[in-house]
């Protein structure tokens, strides 16, 4: 039995165990959902914007949205870099 076969078998078993656990957890979680801070958002957010999701992403968690736009920008820059702009040294 070669090394890759054993590794594949191990990965298959682990994936199977993981999927079964995940399905089991999902079955339980539907009863355990706790709204938590969302009540506060729905109560306070009406004074900020009519759409609560907008209130969350542009007011309470606006800093996450900044991070999101930074990711978009940096992904663009990394793609440009991969296609050859701004590499170090004399690569290609």
């Amino acid at each position, binding site marked *: 039995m070669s090394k890759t076969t054993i590794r*594949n078998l191990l*990965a*298959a078993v682990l*994936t199977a165990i*993981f*999927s079964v656990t*995940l*399905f089991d957890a*999902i*079955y339980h*979680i*539907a*009863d355990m*959902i706790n*709204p*938590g*801070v*969302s*009540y506060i*958002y*729905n*109560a306070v*957010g*009406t004074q900020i914007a*009519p*759409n*609560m*999701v907008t*209130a*969350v*992403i542009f007011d*309470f*968690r606006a800093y*996450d*949205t900044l*991070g*999101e736009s930074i*990711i*978009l920008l*940096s*992904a663009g820059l*990394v*793609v440009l870099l*991969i*296609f050859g702009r701004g590499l170090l040294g004399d690569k290609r």
Partner: protein
Amino acid sequence: MAEVQLVILFTSVALVVIGLYSAIFLDNIIKKIIGISFIEEGVNLFIVAIGYKAGGIVPILMPGMDTTWFASNAAYPLPFGLVLTSIVIGASTLAVMLALVMVLYRRYGTLSTKVMLADTSKREEYNE
């Protein structure tokens, strides 16, 4: 608890499992990347399903609604906000991966992971 929610939660986990399977076991790198996009989709679907409220309304305050009634009946906005961020994150990482694949294809002429991502230390010894 609502039946709708349970069905959608199961769908999301099924998507995660399908994506995980393809990302681990398939050889073609584009298929792997499609599988990774399924994992991200499944996770997003899971988080949105947390925000669902049976018999609730869309969390948008329409003119004429009472605010206290709205607060106790609207769906939960926090998971929706998180998912909006994570969708964009997933798309960005996918774009970077595809760019790397396009450059590496020029060098190897194949999309097989076994050839493209062979263990580099072994390959260096082989080349010498």
